[in-house]
């Protein structure tokens, strides 16, 4: 226990681990505050119309709503489509000024509503293609959640970077400072030291992951992106083809939970590798490769830490039948293997 608290103090204080975590979290906060909402550009052109449509359609999709959207879109198309004809009719005196004026009002309103109507028609088409056995999707303001899950497509690089740096400060730093031979010759310098360093690193990683998750959820809530959390995930475009019923709020918490667990497992794996790769720079590079390469592998990437750290990919994978528990077990096995091999190598000495 004494060794553990000493190592925790060393990683967090002497080697500036806490400072690194604070800096990374601060950078993350700044990034999250600055990151633009992933809005459909058509909304920017007709925000009011979009709001009006949303207010009247908000909530569960029903056949009546679907019909209304289709009819409204057809009506808009019809009004805009006859503009040239009406203009000619008016010029040739086939319609009166009053009729032309009424038509112009309708035409202006149709032009204004066109973007919003198209957006909801696209949503309706998305919903109509979803399997019949799923509970109906919801019409919600989806762009907040879209942004949240766009960010979840990538690992939390700020937090992971802090974890990698802390792991690189454990044995590689001792080796660089020439302390490793002395530590190895000390009474508790092998198994106990290994376990204390590992525990200290994993505890710090867990705490920083929890703080990072809290901060992230806080920023998203402050920016108003977490509304309508009871709607099923396939209500938003990212998961339109994901046939899995889970509310958006729960899906987000699941992503954060998985990310926290995998961050700790990843810290363990990098720690295990640090026994073999004692050069800090090489270790950072290897850890980055392990994080980034699975992102290119599609669903196979979910069997690696890098893939599991991307919440959106996890949810999409689960939707296509990949077992989350199997993926987590495989990732835990990698970490365990790296840790056991690392422990054996450390036990053997230099």
């Amino acid at each position, binding site marked *: 226990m004494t060794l553990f608290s000493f190592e925790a103090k060393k990683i967090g204080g002497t080697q500036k681990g806490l400072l690194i975590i604070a800096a990374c979290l601060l950078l993350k906060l700044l990034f999250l505050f600055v*990151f633009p909402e992933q809005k459909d550009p058509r909304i920017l052109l007709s925000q009011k119309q979009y709001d009006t449509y949303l207010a009247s359609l908000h909530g569960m999709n029903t056949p009546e709503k679907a019909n209304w959207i289709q009819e409204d879109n057809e009506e808009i198309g019809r009004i805009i489509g006859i503009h040239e004809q009406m203009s000619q009719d008016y010029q040739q005196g086939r319609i009166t000024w009053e009729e032309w004026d009424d038509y112009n009002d309708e035409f202006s309103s149709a032009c204004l509503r066109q973007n919003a109507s198209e957006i909801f028609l696209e949503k309706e088409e998305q919903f109509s293609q979803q399997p019949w056995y799923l509970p109906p999707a919801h019409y919600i303001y989806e762009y907040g959640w879209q942004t949240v899950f766009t960010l979840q497509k990538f690992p939390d690089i700020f937090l992971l*970077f802090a974890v990698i740096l802390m792991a690189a*400060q454990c044995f590689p730093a001792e080796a660089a400072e020439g302390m490793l031979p002395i530590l190895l010759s000390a009474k508790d310098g092998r198994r106990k030291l290994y376990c204390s360093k590992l525990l200290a690193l994993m505890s710090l990683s867990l705490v920083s992951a929890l703080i990072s998750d809290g901060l992230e959820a806080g920023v998203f809530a402050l920016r108003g992106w977490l509304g309508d959390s009871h709607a099923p995930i396939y209500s938003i475009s990212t998961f339109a083809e994901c046939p899995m019923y889970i509310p958006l709020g729960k899906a987000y918490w699941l992503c954060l939970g998985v990310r926290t667990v995998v961050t700790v497992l990843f810290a363990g794996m990098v720690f295990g590798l640090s026994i073999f*790769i004692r*050069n800090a*720079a090489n270790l*950072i590079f290897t850890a980055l490769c392990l994080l980034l390469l699975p992102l*290119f592998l599609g669903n196979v990437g979910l069997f690696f830490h890098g893939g599991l750290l991307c919440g959106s990919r996890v949810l999409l994978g689960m939707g296509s039948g990949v077992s989350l528990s199997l993926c987590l077990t495989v990732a835990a096995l990698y970490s365990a293997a790296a840790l056991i091999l690392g422990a054996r190598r450390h036990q053997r000495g230099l």
Partner: protein
Amino acid sequence: MLWKLTKFELKKLVKSKFFLIAAVLLLLVNMLLSGPKEKEQWRYFGSGRQAVAWDRDGYDKLASLTPEEKRDFENAMEEKYGEDVFSPFSSYNLEMYNLPGYFGNEISDGKLITCEMLLRMGNEMTQKFRGEVVPRSKFFGREAILSGNKYEIRRNLQILSLYSAPIREMTYMIYGWWEYLSSNTPMLMSLLLILLLCAGIFTREKEQGMFLLLQTSKYGHGKTLVAKFLAGGISAAMITILFHAGSLLMVYLNSGLMGGTQPMYTKQPMELFPFSLSVWQFAVLSLLCKIFAAVIASVLLCGISSLCKNSVVSYGAGVVVLGGCVLLTLFPPDFELLAGPLTLSRTQWYFNTYYTANHFGYPVLWVIVQVVIWSLVAACLIILSHKVYNRKRSKL
């Protein structure tokens, strides 16, 4: 002497065992990821390469015909299979694929009809898109003259001269090239290796205690520093070329390359590509832009390394800078000047229209503006590194 020093630095960078293993592994991963993306039409042929080879025969035959021969062939096909035989919605029958066809046992009619139909469709699309540019440009040009906007007047005049040139018709479909051009994997893999090479270029010397020796050496004044930057830049360029060559090779092996000599604007979504470059020339231009982006990334990383005390900090800052640049490429900011140097690696983004910046009323291609800006930033960073280097020297 500088070249000798640079060669020495290059040797130092590349001979590390860890780097060599990482480079080989990443190159292999890059080549595996550049492999075939399963395409529906390939299933009938076994592989993409066989599918493209099958198509190539048809295009070769059509390209070898004189205009008269081609007209005769088209008339004969319309007479034999109906007037709408070359339309996209015409019905095909097995008879078309029987041999002998119009050209005897050499090639079936069906293959030639499919090739001709695809070419016609492609050419119509190109005509449609590019045909809309000139009238619109005239309209906007007139508006600009009325409002006295000199930039818009000049820009529209340039657009008129660029897009009024006669459109070259495509004679081959473009296969393989676009997969190579639109893949980001080689660039990302190269960046990882560049990070490994350059982020520790100075800090490694400091950690090994060599910095003091370098400071006291004859060429330590600044030549060593410049040599390190040069070595970083050269290795970044070489890595980028190697990874892109690997990717192109895999595309070639998997699906073959066809249509390299066709104009770039015949390929969707590059219909509005303003110049008359062919596909392979555009691939070279794209590679040059990527090499430039990689060299700038190497200068940034070397600069950071020269300002940092140890490798962990240097790699940390390097990851943050590179990560930020990649993010700016994935989510481009509204304000173009804030786009990082790596946006240059997305060449299509800069060339899918006539994309210019307003510089004192003169339209300048954004890609040129970015190259100039990032060259200046790189030069400033080298000067700053030099100052810090010499300041440390005077403190000794």
